[in-house]
């Protein structure tokens, strides 16, 4: 009996919006809409700000920045490892421009 009651109540709830009437917005809708449109028109950078304010965009931008930083740091580190010692580079320079000091013994 109780189960029958519940079924009846559920059916009553399901049919509660069968004869629903359409709701309408407030009479000031159009003037509010115009106000909103003019505000959006004047806010020139609103779209750009709104785009960057999206969590997806800001998180993606943060990851790109982190990646770029990581790439730059690893590049710098590699360059530092490859830089030859000062004495070797001076010797190479001297060899290239034939600046080796000749001594009397060599002549």
């Amino acid at each position, binding site marked *: 009996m109780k189960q029958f009651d519940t079924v009846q109540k*559920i059916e009553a709830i399901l049919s*509660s*919006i069968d004869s*629903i009437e*359409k709701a*309408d917005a407030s009479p000031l*809708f*159009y003037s509010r*809409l115009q106000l909103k449109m003019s505000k*959006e028109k004047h806010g020139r950078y609103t779209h750009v700000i709104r785009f960057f304010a999206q969590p997806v965009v800001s998180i993606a931008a943060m990851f790109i920045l982190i990646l770029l930083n990581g790439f730059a740091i690893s590049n710098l580190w590699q360059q530092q490892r490859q830089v030859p010692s000062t004495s070797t580079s001076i010797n190479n320079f001297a060899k290239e421009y034939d600046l080796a000091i000749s001594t009397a013994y060599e002549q």
Partner: protein
Amino acid sequence: MEESQLIISLQNGDETAFATLVKSHRQMVFNTALGMIQNHEEAEDVAQDVFIQVYESISGFKGEAKLSTWMYRITITKCLDRIRRSNTKKRFAVVQSFFSKSSLQTNEPVNFYHPGVQLDRKEESAILFKAIAQLPDNQKIAFTLHKVEGLNYQHIAEVMQTSVAAVESYMHRAKQNLRKQLTAFYENNNYEYETI
């Protein structure tokens, strides 16, 4: 003004045509948004956004669908966006409450009373709207467009860009899910709702 004429005028940026469009489609957009979002102020805000988007993108409207169908699609998309954003905010508030000393301020949805429901059925409809809000998106869209907006299955299929059979399936599953939810609801709150 005929629809094709109205579209041409809108594409030419005619302000009077836009006012006519708002006047003729305001109820349709607002009622759909209200059924989906179940909040008067937010529904009006979404309805405004829909008309702004229509104004901005009418130049790209090629007339492949009826103007009303196109506007229903925009309304539904905006509503789903709004609902997702609101759910994200709620989840963020829950996470934030774990890290803050203050207790969680629960934004439990208050009962929604649709202004178009008969007075003697308001309580029942509030329970139903609460259950509709829990439905998956496709079922919610089909059920709301059919029951609240009064569209037939053919028109709903055009709005959702699917077949009539798919809409029938969404409706069938929506009713099944609603029955399940309401049964569970009655089993948990039997005492409170004995009086209804």
